């Protein structure tokens, strides 16, 4: 039986960098984008040689804004994936899109290339909030993109939203949820805005909590999200992710449950055979790497770390507990040969007593309060 593998393909380009974004991405001229796509195809061909015993169960084209790629580039990249890896027939193949970057022609190319799920970055249905975020589109433009995706035949569409935005209120957030649920997407990601160091938002808002919704308001938005989406047919399956039954994102679920994944492209992270590593993160250097030859990997892969048994247990817990269903004690014992109680008995006792986790044999999961302060709870699982 071949082992499951997930592919993450990073497209680091966008029209304009948003004020809150700290991902490895930015605008770049057409010729660089072309060179990058060509290099990506070479990397796929060269890396695939290491994975003869694997079957690819999901592919995720993330960014940046992958929908900036030209139709021909999308077709070429997916052709390379198909030609070099064994892609499962029912694999989930997702592409992230930004409103205003997709034409009908492009969407058809996506369909043709085998992409069967799109994730559209809306963030807010309020144009004022979109402007504050530094987004390049309006709500209307999102609507057009969404409808085009449906017309092109995409039956699995996800929408990304953000709460706790500067100037956002509980009622404007509710309006966003209402507008989006009316469209009946299959999946919604609803994140709280995080002020990340090194972003323009950091210099603007760090140390100015009065410009952002306060903690109480933010939590109210979070609870409203859960309750509102539930009443509209979406269940929370991860801290910030909601889906109609059967439409949970398989790719992300893989991350939380320890499925092996290979990251392709600039700065992409991988988890293979107990090793974590990261691709070269300098665009210039990445594009110049010779992808042929036995030492191509040395040039490409950085920060290679072998996880110890202890670290694998830690990750199993702090990643798995992000899932609403929690982690399974049976699965833990199967993987590590010791019981959850042997390793985390004391921690679990304390957390259960404090009402932060709930035990329902064989599952352990976070309570609602546990989710609110999940960093505190999850840090307890570091050994």
């Amino acid at each position: 039986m071949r082992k499951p593998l997930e592919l993450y393909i990073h497209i680091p380009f966008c029209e304009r960098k948003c004020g809150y974004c700290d991902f490895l991405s930015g605008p770049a001229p057409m010729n660089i984008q072309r060179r990058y796509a060509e290099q990506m195809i070479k990397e796929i061909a060269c890396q695939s040689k290491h994975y003869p015993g694997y079957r690819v169960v999901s592919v995720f084209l993330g960014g940046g804004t992958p929908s900036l790629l030209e139709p021909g580039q999308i077709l070429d990249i997916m052709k390379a994936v198909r030609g070099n890896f064994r892609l499962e027939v029912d694999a989930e193949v997702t592409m992230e899109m930004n409103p205003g970057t997709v034409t009908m022609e492009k969407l058809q190319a996506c369909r043709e290339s085998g992409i069967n799920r799109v994730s559209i970055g809306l963030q807010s249905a309020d144009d004022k909030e979109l402007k504050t975020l530094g987004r390049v589109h309006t709500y209307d433009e999102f609507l057009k993109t969404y409808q085009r995706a449906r017309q092109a035949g995409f039956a699995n569409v996800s929408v990304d939203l953000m709460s706790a935005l500067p100037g956002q209120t509980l009622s404007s957030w509710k309006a966003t949820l209402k507008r989006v649920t009316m469209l009946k997407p299959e999946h919604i990601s609803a994140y709280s805005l995080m002020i990340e160091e090194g972003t323009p938002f950091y210099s603007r808002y760090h140390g100015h909590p009065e410009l952002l919704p306060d903690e109480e308001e933010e939590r109210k938005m979070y609870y409203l999200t859960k309750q509102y989406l539930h009443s509209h047919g979406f269940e929370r399956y991860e801290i910030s992710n909601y889906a109609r039954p059967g439409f949970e994102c398989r790719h992300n679920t893989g991350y939380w449950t320890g499925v092996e994944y290979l990251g392709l492209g600039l700065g992409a992270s991988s988890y293979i055979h107990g090793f974590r590593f990261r691709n070269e993160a300098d665009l210039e250097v990445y594009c110049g790497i010779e992808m042929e030859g036995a030492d191509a990997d040395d040039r490409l892969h950085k920060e290679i770390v072998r996880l110890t048994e202890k670290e694998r247990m830690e990750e199993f817990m702090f990643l798995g507990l992000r899932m609403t269903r929690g982690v399974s004690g049976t699965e833990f014992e199967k993987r590590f040969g010791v019981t959850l109680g042997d390793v985390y008995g004391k921690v679990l006792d304390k957390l259960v007593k404090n009402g932060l986790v709930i035990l329902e044999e064989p599952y352990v999961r976070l309570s609602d309060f546990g989710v609110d302060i999940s960093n505190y709870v999850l840090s307890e699982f570091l050994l």
Partner: protein
Amino acid sequence: MPIIDQNRIRNFCIIAHIDHGKSTLADRIIEMTGLLTSREMQSQVLDNMDLERERGITIKAQAVRTVYKAKNGEEYIFNLIDTPGHVDFNYEVSRSLAACDGAILVVDAAQGIEAQTLANVYLALDHDLDVFPVLNKIDLPSAEPDRVAAEIEDVIGLEAADAPRISAKTGLNVEEVLEAIVEKIPAPSGNAAAPLKALIFDSLYDSYKGVIIFCRIKEGTVKKGTTIRMMATGAEEEVVEVGYFGAGQFIPCEELSAGMVGYITASIKNVKDTAVGDTITDKFNPCSEPLPGYKKVTSMVYCGLYPADGAKYNDLRDALEKLQLNDASLFFEPETSIALGFGFRCGFLGLLHLEIIQERLEREYNLDLVTTAPGVVYRVHKKSGDMIELTNPSNLPDPSEIEFMEEPIVTAEIMVTTEFVGAIMTLCQERRGVYLGMEYIETTRALLKYELPLNEIIYDFFDALKSRSRGYASFDYEIKGYEQSELVKLDILINKEEVDALSFIVHASSAYERGRKMCEKLKEEIPRHLFEIPIQAAVGGKIIARETVKAMRKDVLAKCYGGDISRKKKLLEKQKEGKKRMRQVGNVEIPQKAFMSVLKLDEE
């Protein structure tokens, strides 16, 4: 080695306000008397502890002997005795001065006389030393040597018209200082045939030689085989070696006789036996009476030192014992705190001494420490007639048993430019100062005299002084004695539990203010928990201030970009690291640095 003619010896020290160039001048003197080549010179030969170099102050007295060929063609032996430059070490300074016959007063030609300049000059004159002034830093554009020379004559009354005008940094005119040492500092006197009488001005523990005593021979002669007796401590031992101080090394010689400065080793195991200020005599031919001025060193400031990791208790004890080998003024005894576990109550000469010991424990012995708020020694007079010297607030008897309490008072001299006099007087009043008087040094500067309670100045008085005078005020003090005072114990309750390590003694009039600030500070320091935490300040069971640490509401990483697990883990690790540096009191975790909060109450 021939007996040295007393007329060819000059024993002296250099006195100066901090940063006026004492160590630099010492370096130049050593360099120019030629015992060391420039290559051998470390930047500042006398200060050989790292810590001293970083802080720019001299902690322990040290000495160096050099040979100078004067313009008159004769060779002179210079014994330069270094003195500590901080009020914490006033007694050590006085013993170093007593080992000298004269002193060079270094004054910064740009800054003029400062508080320590005056205090040191008066101390030197008290010891009958001949003092001559030197104007330093004349290469600075802001130097005003004429004005400062006039100031020295007016304020101190020392002849300064022909004072050498030098730059110790560049070496300019330093040879004038060397000639002045020969001419203006008297040669020592004393009868080499009389019974031995030598002054201990420092000592040092060496793992091979045992204690090395630094001394000045006042009368008589000491050599290998002499059985010496320390007149105050009573310790007796046979001399193994005598010698003098090369730059950074000990050079053995045949004998030390009256007028000389040098060292003695005698297989002594503990510096406690060789107290600074004690008199050494010959057991079999003793002198009739000891030298005047010996005082038993007493600790002025106490605090609790606890290992951050309880398992390191024995390591901390070993480290304190090792430090004590070289520092008789360091006191410690075991104590136990409910909040902090097992540790030590330690006594110090002052706050600087405390900080130095704390830093050495952390740096040289790799110990992570929790320090409780420093306090002074209070005298508690009980109704039963007993008197307790209180060094740990937790040991304060029940108020019903107390007749009255006393606290130590100092006499302080503060020198400040006239524009800040008002601000400094306000500061002194806030610190319960009693105004004694004010003198004008010149039209723009004044010398303020106050009596202040020691516990009001040990933490941050110096910093407050500097900030309220834009750095221009200078300060010196000496202990006056004990006075009755209205003192109370301020307790801190966290989540309704009294935290013994946070209690401190405070004057009744400032209890409310201190309690309020303490609660505010702790509110900042204590992280949010799963539950709400009241922080209260109480005097005698009555709550006088309260703050609340709100319960944790939200701490969640919303977006966790799938592939990049290491970033997520770093965040969790940081969180876990934070928890480690906490002390569990009841079910509240208190960060270690919170126990020092009381020190920072006036920081704004």
